């Protein structure tokens, strides 16, 4: 019996650069939140997190984050922490928000 949860994605930081990354369905990692694979039930989410943890040579500290969906079906961050991770700090024009 699958449990319904809010939509989730797997996010982590890139091992070498430290940059925030998102797990795609094909097991590659994207810099863009909108490309993350969206997981709609708990079992799938836990399974994909386990998959991410096997990629310790690529990423560090993967975890599940809730996500909202926009009008064209792409995941968009729904909490401040995840919004910040998609863009960088608000006091300096640094991080992902720079092009």
């Amino acid at each position, binding site marked *: 019996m699958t449990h319904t949860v809010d939509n989730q994605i797997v996010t982590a930081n890139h091992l070498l650069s*430290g*940059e925030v990354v998102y797990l795609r369905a094909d097991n590659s990692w994207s810099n863009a939140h909108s490309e993350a694979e969206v997981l709609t039930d708990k079992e799938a989410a836990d399974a994909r997190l386990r998959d991410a943890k096997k990629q310790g040579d690529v990423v560090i500290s993967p975890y599940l984050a809730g996500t909202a969906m926009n009008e064209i079906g792409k995941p968009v961050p729904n909490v*401040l922490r995840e919004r*910040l991770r998609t863009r960088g700090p608000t006091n300096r024009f640094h991080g992902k928000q720079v092009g």
Partner: protein
Amino acid sequence: MYAYTKFDTDFNSDRVAQFRDQVARRIDGSLSEEEFRPLRLMNGLYLMLHAYMLRVAIPYGTLNSVQMHALADIADRFDKGYGHFTTRQNIQFNWPKLQEVPDILAALAKVDMHAVQTSGACVRNVSADHFAGAAADEIDDPRPTAEFIRQWSTDHPEFAFLPRKFKFAVTGSPHDRAVTKMHDVGLRLLQDGDGQPGYEVSVGGGLGRTPMIGRTVRKFLPRIDLLPYLEAILQVYNELGRRDNKYKARIKITVHETGLEEITRMIEARFLQQRTRFDGSDQFLFDRIRGDFSAPDYRHGTCEDFQSARRLNPAFRSFTDTNLNAHKNPDYTSITVSLKTHGQTPGDATSSQMRALADIAARWSHNELRVSHEQNIILPHVHKNHVPAVFDALKKIGLATANIGLISDIIACPGMDYCDLATARSINVAQGIATRFDELKLEHDIGPIKLKISGCINACGHHHVGHIGILGLQKAGVESYQITLGGDGTENTAIGKVMGPGFAAEEIIPAIERLIYAYLDLRDNAQETFLQAYRRLGAQPFKAAVYQTQDKANAA
């Protein structure tokens, strides 16, 4: 300041080589993250919200011009051209890349710096009064003691895996600027009746989610007994400290759960055992360290330029009214350079500002700088006649703000803009408060006040000891800021009390405004500080003003 011996430089370069190898093995997969994590933490490398973060040690906040130049170079070569000075007198770089960290550590080692034990469950940077060796009210310089503890605790095999982090602070003045009573172990330099040096030892202070004031376990500890006594404390902690629950693992919980009397008994018993293992040769090392901290080669000469600049230049007079601290040499002063320019990020400096500060220190402060836990830079030894030149040089780099000790001299942690642990942003609140009171031109009227902001319950912004503290939490996914009142980090240590329900991000600055207007309204006279007024009146009238309740208290 302390001069590295060959032993020290060899230790540093060996450590760099060791970490370089550990990084290589992490990258090639021979080390898992679980194996690598404690090793990288012991070398100051965190993972934060957007990137790695490297915390470089500035032992007891003291560095020289060459070292400050090196930090500027690292900021440019390996980071984004700036650094953040912290509430434990260290510096943080927010954007290092893993494979470059060994090169950063190598660059640090070239100038006798490191990132050893700035994180991890071990003894961290020993902090000390930022006016050490200069302050007029000092009994003795606390830094030889701090350096002594640094060397003793670095790579100490018995204390490399404590239940949790462990922080020391040392003050050499009865005016405690090092917040010793809010550290795991606080040391206050004293002399006994015969003039013999020693310490009052307090244990179990801390901020964080359960703030506690340190308890005195020994009123006077002779200096010759320092190391065996500290070993006894750490041994008792190692034995009793909780390893089952991260939130109950600090020694403050151990003291609380064991009781002061029992833990003092245990420490004293262990101390007697440990003392037999020390043959006194550690005192030779202490004396050699002490010799490195001799007074600067003071220059002589008139202070006329200082006096006439104060007479003729209102901006200079304002700067010297707020940013100077009395020096033991009456012809000298210590200048606090504010890293709290209104609207800027508290504690940050650009690489060009760092270089300019290094050159100013080389020219006019006997080659020495300090980092204070209040996130400012100090030029400790400036002849008064040089202060006008220093002021002009600071103006050129945008670091001449005359706000030390005023409401815009805010301690703020990096908060959710950078920190993985944060529940709210803190930098924007600090900027907003500073800008607002600058606009209102009320800062000097408000007078001395310590406002501190933490972006989560870990309290790295020291909000518990702010006269006004702000704690950034999250309620239903939205930032919510709680105000605390009446904290005090001096020898009159007090933990601030929560005033009432929290405020949303757009409400917190108006709330602080109402609080300050209430103080201006309620104070006895212009000389009564915020903290004095609070202690006289209690929270009620301030609470009424901030929450605008019907029952406005009549002033007593």
